[in-house]
Structure formats: structure tokens, C-alpha cells
């Protein structure tokens, strides 16, 4: 349980910081960099979430398929 709460906080932190970076870069007119920062933040979080979901599927498999 501890691990999962940790990962949620991490995702939230990355989200907040990336949102701030996006606003700051947007304000000075560096729109293209802002887009890239958001995109990379999104991809990073996507990888994290994908690995967790993979864990979940493995668990389901081991419970229901009796391997």
C-alpha cells in the first residue's frame, strides 16, 4: 500500500511542476518548448502507469489462470 500512495504523489508532483513550467514558458512566448515539456512529462508518467498496470495484469493472470 505504501508504494502505491508514493507513486500517486510522484505523479501529482510531476503534473504540478510540468503545469508550472508550461505556464511560465507559455507566458514568454516559447510555446514550442512548452509543448515539448508537457509531452515529455506525459510520456514519463505514461511509462510509470504502464508498468504498474502491467503488474496488475500479471497478478490477475496468476490468480485466475492458475499457471
Amino acid at each position, binding site marked *: 500500500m505504501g508504494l502505491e500512495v508514493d507513486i500517486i504523489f*510522484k505523479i501529482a*508532483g510531476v503534473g504540478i*511542476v510540468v503545469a508550472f*513550467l508550461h505556464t511560465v*514558458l507559455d507566458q*514568454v*512566448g516559447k510555446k514550442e518548448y512548452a509543448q515539448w515539456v508537457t509531452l515529455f512529462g506525459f510520456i514519463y508518467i505514461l511509462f510509470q502507469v504502464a508498468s504498474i498496470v502491467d503488474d496488475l495484469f500479471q497478478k490477475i493472470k496468476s490468480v485466475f489462470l492458475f499457471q
Partner: protein
Amino acid sequence: MVKLIGAIFIILATTWTGFEAAKHLSERPRQLRQLRSALQSLEAEIMYGHTPLHEAARRLAAQLSNPLSSFFEGFAKKLTDTETTVKDAWEDSLKDVWKQTAFKQGEFEIMKQFGETLGRHDRISQQKHIMLTLSHLEREEADAVDKQAKYEKMVKSLGFFSGLLLIILLI
């Protein structure tokens, strides 16, 4: 505990980098203003004071603050002590002091071109050359002020937030 100390180090380092970059941005218009007033006093020395160049440079060095002061001081020293032309002395002292200033390549070219005209004409054309250099520098200063207003805040917050992001990713 060690993690916390590392995190503090990272955030201090990136914030400091941001502030240093911001300082560079705010230093450039200030030094350009100083340089313009220096050239204006040089013009006054030449036009109304009839001062020899090394004497005028020494007075300017006394009036100004670093790094421009050391530039004019080096220039005056080279003129009196060594056997060179004004152009070479100007360029050499410009190169010596360049690393300490916040100027960019554009200003370097302007100053170099000005050094080529220095001391080669009568007073009236010398004044015209000073005016030309002043107007060039004014343009650069407007550009520098523009850049400062645009990027100073961004660089500061960018440093802080990139440190924060790095910490979150590493924890």
C-alpha cells in the same frame, strides 16, 4: 536523510544557475548604459577639453566602475607604456576585459569598428564616428532591455522548477 540533503543540494544548484543567468541578463543593459555614457564623456573630452587620448582614457577609468574602468585603464596603460597604434591597443584591451563583461558579439564588433576610427580623423569626423557608435549601442541597449524584460523572470523560475522536477523524478 541523505536523500533530503541531496534534494536540497540539487534545488540550490539549479536555482543558483537560474539566478546567475538572470544576473547576466540584467547586467547587460546596465553595462551598455555605462558604455554609452563613457563614450559621451570621451566625446566631451575630445571636443571641448582637447585632451590627449591616453589622458582622456585615464579620466574615464577614474569615473567609471568595473569592468569598464579596467578596460579604459588598460587602454591608457597600453598607449603610454608600449609602442602600438591606437587601434591595436583598443582591440587588445577590449579582448582582455571582454570575458568579464556581459556584452555579446554585436557590441564587440561595434566597439572594434569604433577603435579602428579612433584617433585617425579630425575632431569633427571623430565626433561623427562617436555619434554613429552611440546610435549603434542604443539599438543594442533597446534589444538588451527587451530581452531582460522577456526572459529574466522565466530563467529564474525555470531554474527552480527544473530542480524540483529532477528531485521528483529521482526520488
